[in-house]
């Protein structure tokens, strides 16, 4: 295993073994077989070092900056940092030193200089209501900005559930008319990295892939990288054996909860949530929601906010059954009505009874 990347890393004081270790861990996180770690290391090491670092433009729309927080927290001065250092982040409102006209200028310069080659990262949803007036930057609506910047982009990364699906701004009743990036842009490759917030390493994984192969990784039909969203939380959950044994925590403070039993009955959405939390974990591998005793909210799935309640088991009705009393009443009314009609018919038949005589046996 040798190549420009190894040399670059060596210059930064990162050893070959460190890189191997990182790749083994990344493969494990991406739920790939251990052998894939080595293959990835070979591929990435052999990738030609870009003469010029690729440009990245990051546009924030209706968002809470949680996604940015999540990504920046992954910046330990390590290999991940190296990979981030391999790009040129030309516009990122939260992080950039420039402000006002200077910032706008940086944006336009980056767009002009790297036309057709830059990577556009979007976090936040795009409001369509009131002609987009709900969210504007530099006098431009998010819709206009997105269309303008997307035009020259090589690919778009929709960062977080808001950009990927509309997210919380789109939650019922969606007052701003929020939509996802893919609802607006139809002619560019878009990759969704949903989550509220998304897992940082997914972003680095996608970046690494983009850097290594110049393309977006394989995606599922919701446009998510398969490596991270290929399996459900439930299937990779360390509490899964308890589900299979039928051992469930019934409340957050009962015996079962303390023994770490399955949180299905407390509303865990793990079975229908495709994400890598169970393997990658959060905060440098410290823990993740289920490990800390709370069910999965399903934040990497579309419309998770309107999924019928975070604390309702998946097999429970999403809406309360309001129809019971009404249905019983209508059913009873229908039944009684038919029974009256039947009784009338029957007594009619009885009343019309002509006593049969022998002659009546013949037609």
């Amino acid at each position, binding site marked *: 295993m040798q190549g420009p990347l190894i040399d670059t890393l060596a210059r930064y004081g990162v*050893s070959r073994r460190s890189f191997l*270790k990182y790749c083994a861990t990344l493969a494990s996180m991406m739920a790939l077989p251990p052998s894939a770690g080595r293959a990835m290391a070979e591929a990435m090491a052999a990738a030609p070092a870009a003469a010029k670092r690729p440009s990245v433009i990051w546009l924030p729309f209706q968002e809470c900056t949680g996604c940015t927080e999540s990504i920046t927290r992954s910046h330990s001065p390590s290999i991940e940092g190296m990979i981030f250092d391999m790009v040129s982040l030309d516009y990122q409102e939260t992080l950039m030193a420039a402000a006002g006209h200077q910032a706008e200028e940086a944006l336009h310069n980056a767009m002009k200089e790297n036309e057709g080659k830059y990577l556009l990262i979007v976090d936040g949803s795009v409001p369509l209501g009131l002609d987009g007036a709900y969210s504007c930057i530099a006098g431009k609506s998010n819709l206009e900005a997105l269309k303008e910047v997307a035009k020259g982009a090589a690919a778009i990364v929709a960062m977080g559930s808001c950009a990927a699906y509309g997210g919380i701004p789109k939650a019922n009743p969606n007052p701003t008319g929020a939509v996802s990036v893919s609802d607006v842009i139809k002619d560019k490759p878009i990759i969704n990295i949903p989550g509220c917030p998304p897992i940082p390493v997914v972003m680095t994984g996608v970046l690494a892939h983009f850097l290594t192969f110049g393309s977006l990784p394989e995606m599922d039909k919701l446009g998510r990288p398969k490596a991270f969203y290929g399996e459900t939380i439930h299937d990779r959950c360390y509490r899964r054996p308890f589900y299979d044994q039928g051992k469930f925590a019934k409340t957050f403070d009962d015996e079962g909860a*303390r023994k*770490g039993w399955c949180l299905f009955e407390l509303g865990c959405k793990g079975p229908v949530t495709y994400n890598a939390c169970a393997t990658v974990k959060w905060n440098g591998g410290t823990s993740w929601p289920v490990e800390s005793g709370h069910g999965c909210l399903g934040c990497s799935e579309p419309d998770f906010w309107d999924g019928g309640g975070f604390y309702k088991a998946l097999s429970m009705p999403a809406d309360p059954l309001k129809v019971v009393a009404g249905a019983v009443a209508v059913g009873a009314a229908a039944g009684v009505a038919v029974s009256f009609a039947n009784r009338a018919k029957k007594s009619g038949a009885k009343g019309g009874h002509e006593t049969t005589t022998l002659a009546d046996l013949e037609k």
Partner: protein
Amino acid sequence: MSLADIPVIQGVASSLTGNAPILLREIAEHLRRLLDCGETAAIDLQALPLTPADRAWLRERLGNGEIRVALEAEGQSTLEETGCQGVWWVTHHNEKGAVVSEFIETAFVPELVKAHPDDVQSGLEHLELLISDLC
């Protein structure tokens, strides 16, 4: 109410699931292949539905061997030979000490331990520099 009053039972959150004994058979199969055709293999422990108790059970069964390699590279890594020679327990930590990945490898010597020729070359160059300095 103080924090101490909250009755959290540490470590109970894991009991045996019965998944660990199955792994022993898989490891044995990998070892057979290592002997037959020199093929190495690794099992990603984080990819399996194992509780901490399962892992502890497995670790205990496999036992401790004679070699323990500590690797300092972006956090510590340990490569421990288990009581079954040829079976290595590999744990990677990050700089904060958290476990980032954990494998059971079957190999005569884990690949990570071996030095790469390029690095040996660098080592040789460094050594030659040292020698030239002596003169």
